[in-house]
């Protein structure tokens, strides 16, 4: 099997390529083909799940840029999502017909919020920064609930399906394609960002801020840039959430949502774009898997009541187990398994590759 060594490149082009060997190209083509034909094969329930995973992946990739790459802790992720969703809702409510304009508005608000949180991050570190973002989350939620109670119908805003050109985005299949496509785009963006100047600067800042500054990285600029990038993408994810659901209410953006996103990037593996996607799939699908398991058990009536707290507890337990026993996350497990098969009968690579 040729997976590429990571350290033996003969041309500049092969160094730049994201997918560098034939096996990888074939696997990627097979994956894309499978995603394209999926709507013909499965029920709309599965498609809806896939769309949810894709949406969560966009948010998780954005959080991964901030926390995994730049090492800046955010407890306000749900606040940024909420900001995007409510900006979209408010813009649509006041007659902005074009979804592009709404998305751009959400991105602008997200970037502005990122700037507002990013600037104190120059002074604050670690936990103190996390607290600032937590406070920001509550302030955003307050503004949103004021909007909702003053101008929206009291329970929330409803949003008509957006029209792009002649096409109205409505129905499970359409949204599956839209969200999966956008998630793939975000994945490419995140993977390339990681390899770019900014990504390398962020990783240097994450690993040792003083050392990063001493090799000429403008720490202040890159920190703020990480916040702006991350919150912009997060806001767009919020806007997409609003369009897909067609309904926005403050209740959907509690602190638990933040915890879920943090769980995604931790369970997936911090600092890895693939990990963010795997984690998003894991955390999104976990409740449904538990549902299926319980349905298979055929419990007596009345047991459904315990399902919700049981799911909630399983989620907390898994997160704790990953934190304590597998800090590398799913990506770490995947790499270990892959390397075991690749290297068998040997135990180590001759040289450590970067992939």
């Amino acid at each position: 099997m040729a997976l590429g060594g990571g350290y033996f490149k003969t041309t500049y082009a092969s160094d730049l390529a994201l997918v560098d060997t034939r096996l990888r190209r074939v696997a990627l083509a097979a994956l894309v083909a499978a995603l394209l034909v999926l709507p013909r094969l499965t029920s709309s329930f599965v498609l809806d799940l896939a769309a949810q995973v894709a949406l969560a992946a966009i948010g998780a990739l954005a959080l991964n840029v901030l926390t995994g790459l730049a090492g800046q802790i955010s407890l306000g992720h749900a606040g940024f999502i909420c900001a995007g969703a409510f900006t979209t809702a408010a813009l649509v409510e006041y007659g902005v017909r074009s979804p592009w304009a709404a998305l751009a508005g959400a991105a602008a608000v997200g970037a502005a919020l990122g700037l507002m949180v990013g600037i104190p991050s120059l002074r604050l570190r670690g936990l103190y920064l996390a607290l600032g973002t937590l406070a920001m989350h509550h302030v955003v939620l307050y503004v949103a609930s004021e909007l909702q109670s003053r101008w929206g119908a009291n329970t929330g805003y409803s949003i008509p399906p957006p029209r792009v050109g002649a096409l109205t985005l409505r129905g499970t299949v359409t949204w599956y394609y839209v969200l999966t496509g956008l998630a793939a785009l975000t994945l490419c963006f995140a993977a390339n960002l990681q390899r770019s100047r900014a990504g390398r600067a962020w990783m240097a800042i994450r690993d040792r801020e003083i050392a990063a500054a001493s090799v000429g990285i403008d720490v202040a600029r890159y920190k703020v840039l990480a916040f702006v990038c991350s919150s912009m993408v997060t806001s767009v994810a919020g806007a997409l959430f609003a369009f897909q659901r067609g309904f926005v209410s403050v209740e959907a953006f509690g602190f638990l949502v933040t915890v879920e996103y943090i769980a995604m990037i931790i369970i997936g593996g911090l600092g890895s774009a693939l990990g963010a996607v795997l984690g998003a799939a894991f955390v999104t699908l976990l409740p449904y898997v538990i549902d299926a398991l319980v349905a298979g058990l055929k419990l007596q009536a009345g047991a459904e009541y315990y399902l919700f707290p049981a799911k909630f507890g399983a989620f907390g337990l898994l997160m704790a187990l990953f934190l304590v026993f597998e800090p590398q996350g799913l990506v770490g497990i995947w790499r270990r398994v892959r390397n075991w098969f690749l290297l068998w009968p040997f135990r180590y690579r001759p040289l450590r590759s970067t992939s």
Partner: protein
Amino acid sequence: MAQVLATTLVVASLYALLAAGYVLVYRASRVLNLAQGDMLTLGGYLLFAVAANVGGGPVLAIPVAAALAALTGFLIYLVLMRPMAGHPVFAAVLVTVTLGILLRAAIVLVFTDQIRHPAQLLGLGNPPRRLPGGAVVSTFDVLTVLTAAALFAGLFLFLRLSPLGIQMRAAGERALLASQRGIDFHRLFALAWALAALSGALAGILYSSNVRLEPSLDVLGLKAFAVALVGGLDSLGGVIPAAILVALIEVLTVRYGNPLLSDVSPFLCLLAMLLVRPWGLFGTREELERV
């Protein structure tokens, strides 16, 4: 005016009880315990469980519930937090988040999410009391203020006079030096967690007897967190003025602003503090550089 002051004092006492838990754990191990709000619900539900199953009146039920909560805090340290020693602080903070999730799930599993009133179960009334100056507060309001005062007095005496308390201060001040003098850190951390759970549970016992008991009360924990930061995360003495300040702002916004805004006012205080003086009113300045 007297009513505003009285209400402020009551709210401040509740926040101070909760914030003491944050500060105790933070001073000992630099870990922020984001599950402190769930310690509050835990205390309330322990009281409910003891009252429902054991009975024996408030004189027995309240101390038993408080002791069980302290024991839970000790176990939490042993099972969840001790394995995190040596891991990055942020990972430990996330473990406290998952702890909050687990506690909440366990509470809903065992007790369901109905609203409960443990005080009724114990046969306690909550008659209003008229204070000099015309303010009216409930009996449990008075008890909350008295408990907070007693807890803080006890903590100050403990930290100032007892050998264990002095060790705790030493460990909080210079961890390395303290460990070289043979201070057993894990014992201190376990004690800090037990005390934090105890103070949170006291807040929960009082609040649930006074108002109501439901799993979503853990929001109060986040508000008290703003209090801990405004006072300075490593300063137990700072909690009291900070609690009064934050509570006063909150009570005034309820009275003259709107209730939605009052819910976020502690977080606005927190943001303002982070911008102006991130180490808090009475915190140590180097603290910020160390984390």
